[in-house]
């Protein structure tokens, strides 16, 4: 009798977890097939000489791909370009977003209009704004026409090695800062007004209030924005792909573009996967580093 009850209890318990598994299983299967498996494959291919066109010739070559990639000038060029983009766009875009958030951190009808204006580029797609800004950056384009009012000569925004990446940076910040402005706005609302009042009584001016009240109050938000923007910035691909094709003279060629080119144009799965794995390591390392840096510093 007791045995039977125990048995039944076991079955019930088993059925319970079976049901739980049924809930979780579809997602797990999909994640395995379309995320975990390809990640393992990328890791594996990075140790193989593997051309998609000749899969039968696939053979293990150890770290050769890695040494090849790390010795390749093209790889370091794209790495440098990508890092340049990250290092400039992250602080530029984040401080722009913070400045905009502070400028409109007052509830009124007019700040609402400003907010919608700042946010509006977010609702377009990167392809749309890349094409739009290619026209605006053109030799006879809108921006050069505007600059000529002030007597500034025609600028080769996308056609000079020196300016192309900066032009892409400016446009990217223009597109995305409205989104991060919203995040900062929410953070600003969490800082109690009394802190500012106390600081003002202590004789702190606006700038000091910003340094001693706003920045510490936003620590978590700043960390989040910087990490997200950094990861996103490393993935730069669409803007140069559409606007410059990586040129002029490779000055806007990025790591992701190299992954794409090696993999899908030259069909070199081994080499492409090696870059992809290195790319993953860099992103993981940098985002961990930023999180540690901002966590440890006390304002």
């Amino acid at each position, binding site marked *: 009798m007791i045995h039977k009850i125990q048995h039944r209890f076991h079955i019930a318990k088993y059925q319970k977890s079976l049901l739980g598994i049924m809930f979780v299983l579809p997602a797990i299967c999909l*994640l395995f097939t379309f995320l975990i498996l390809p990640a393992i494959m990328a890791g594996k291919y990075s140790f193989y000489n593997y051309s998609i066109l000749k899969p039968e010739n696939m053979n293990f070559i150890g770290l050769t791909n890695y040494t090849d990639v790390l010795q390749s000038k093209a790889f370091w060029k794209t790495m440098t370009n990508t890092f340049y983009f990250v290092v400039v766009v992250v602080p530029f875009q984040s401080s722009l977003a913070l400045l905009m958030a502070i400028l409109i951190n007052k509830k009124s009808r007019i700040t609402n209009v400003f907010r919608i204006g700042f946010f509006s580029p977010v609702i*377009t*797609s990167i392809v749309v704004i890349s094409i739009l800004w290619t026209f605006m950056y053109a030799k006879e384009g809108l921006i050069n026409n505007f600059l000529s009012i002030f007597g500034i000569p025609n600028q080769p925004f996308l056609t000079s090695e020196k300016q192309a990446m900066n032009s892409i940076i400016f446009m990217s910040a223009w597109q995305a800062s409205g989104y991060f402005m919203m995040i900062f706005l*929410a953070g600003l609302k969490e800082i109690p007004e009394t802190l500012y009042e106390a600081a003002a009584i202590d004789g702190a001016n606006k700038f000091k209030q910003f340094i001693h009240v706003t920045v510490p109050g936003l620590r978590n938000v700043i960390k989040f924005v910087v990490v997200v923007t950094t990861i996103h910035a490393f993935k730069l691909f*669409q803007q140069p792909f559409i606007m410059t094709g990586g040129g002029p003279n490779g000055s806007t060629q990025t790591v992701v573009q190299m992954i794409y080119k090696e993999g899908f144009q030259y069909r070199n799965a081994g080499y492409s996967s090696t870059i992809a794995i290195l790319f993953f390591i860099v992103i993981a390392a940098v985002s961990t580093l930023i999180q540690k840096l901002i966590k440890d510093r006390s304002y």
Partner: protein
Amino acid sequence: MKKLNKRHIIDIGSLILRTLFFLVFIAPLLWLVVSSFKQEMNIFKDMGSLSAFIPKDLFLGNYTKAFQRADLIKYVMNSMFYVFLITLFGMIVNSLCGYGLAKLKVPYSKQILKFIIALIIIPFETIILPLFLIVNNFGWVNSFQALIVPFIANCFNIYLFKQFFSGIPDEFLEAARVDGASDLRTFLQIVLPQSTTVFATVFILTFVAHWGDFMWPLIVASDDSVRTIQVGLQFLFTNPPQLYGVILAGLTFSTIPLAIIFLMFQKYYVQSAASSGLKG
């Protein structure tokens, strides 16, 4: 009196700064929409003055020409279709998974959750080539499956659902269970109705993320029948002759669906942005 003046100066300065910013942010979009309704020659003629931003012709020829040169309506429909299906299937699969991890007995559920969160860090760019080989193996190239199926399960959305469902008190679910409702029925009839926030949030996040998809559709959906609007725009842009008015019309037209979705769900989008930052 002196203090008041200083404050006024700051206020005016801030207003000027805000207005300048506003103009910088709005001008390109204004130019885009206004120019899409202008004759080609007028776009260039007006570019040197303020009239670049002033509607003049209400010329619809750019739009008819854009639709002739590329089947933009079909591409927009294609994009709507595949993005909607990703969000729909995604909401089902990810919410079930999140609920299972939050409220049901799943062996090793804590470890599974940790693992899923860890997977978020893998950049899509790292797996894109093997993923293409897998999809190719399934014979999905140039079909909607390739655009949809790999993106249904989403680690971050599972996490969002899990967090939300964990917030529902257990007693609440126990009550339903005592009434004899099965777990599935509890989920469908008790949990779902009070979860509109998290579903709306996941909907808008997923929609916005995939609407802008470019590299993946470029690789797996080059065929005209499954071409997405982003890839279609790029074709319109790169195929000569490069007529500004026609291309700007295409850009404007392609933005309408996303703008509508945004207007409907902006509350949730902004909320999710806000809370993501606060949690840090």
